């Protein structure tokens, strides 16, 4: 899981789950830890890590948690209500899937650009790694 994931998991769950036992909290954290890598791309993990790092330098981790992360998870109450009644799993999944792509491409297109740049960097790193492996194989 990304570095961002640990902040998100801690704060998000505290807010989302409220009064839960330590045992079930740990279980839920595990669900999020496992979920993260299965749901999101490595590019998004890298972008969030970079943003977390930048903001931590700017405002410190305590402010970051208080100002943004905690509030962001509290604010999810309203979007949750939009999928409460008469909504199927298909509708909820698709609506959320597209809402995220809209935010990335139309509201914050610089994030879409950043993801493209990260992808290019990851591909370069992969190519370099493959080249190294091939050279190692040749020399052995």
């Amino acid at each position, binding site marked *: 899981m990304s570095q961002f994931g640990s902040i*998100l998991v801690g704060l*998000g769950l505290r807010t*989302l789950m409220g009064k839960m036992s330590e045992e079930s909290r740990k279980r839920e954290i595990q*669900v*999020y830890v*496992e*979920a*993260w*890598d*299965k*749901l*999101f*791309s490595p*590019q*998004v993990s890298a972008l*969030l890590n970079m*943003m*977390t790092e*930048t*903001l931590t330098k*700017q405002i410190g981790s305590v402010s970051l948690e208080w*100002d*943004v*992360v905690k*509030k*962001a*998870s509290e*604010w*999810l109450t*309203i*979007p*949750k209500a*939009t*999928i409460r009644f008469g*909504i*199927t*799993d*298909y*509708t*909820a*999944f*698709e*609506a*959320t*899937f*597209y*809402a*995220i*792509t*809209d*935010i*990335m*491409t139309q*509201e*914050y297109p*610089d*994030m*879409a650009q950043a*993801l493209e740049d990260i*992808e290019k960097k990851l591909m370069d790193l992969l190519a370099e790694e493959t080249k190294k492996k091939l050279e190692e194989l040749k020399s052995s």
Partner: protein
Amino acid sequence: MAEKEFEELLSKYESTMPAIAPRVFSRAVCTYHIVLNASVEQRLGAEKKKVADKVVQDKRNEIRNHIMHRCRDVEKHFENRGNKTIQGHYAALIMATLFFTYVVTEKYPKLFEVISTLAKRAQQRTAGSEGREA
């Protein structure tokens, strides 16, 4: 419906997937998005799916607007303090990813079961092909 027709539905939805999607979501989620659309069209028929997609469109806008409303508040808050930061972007990403995780793991846990199975299969295929290469 014949297998061939279902294959055609799959490629139809693959071609309509937003270009940004594979950079945001895992391969398993993108695959599931394609399969889900094709199977809903197969089950309901194209006309009824259009009705369901109208609901998707409305909810998509509602979710986007709720998230963006909060993010603009965050931006204004920091701009008023003379401090222009990337906190709006950050809040948007956190809210969006946390909400998606909530939908598939808590609200509809069966979705997560299917996505996990797809992810495992993809992993096994990758491991298999790497093994063959070695």
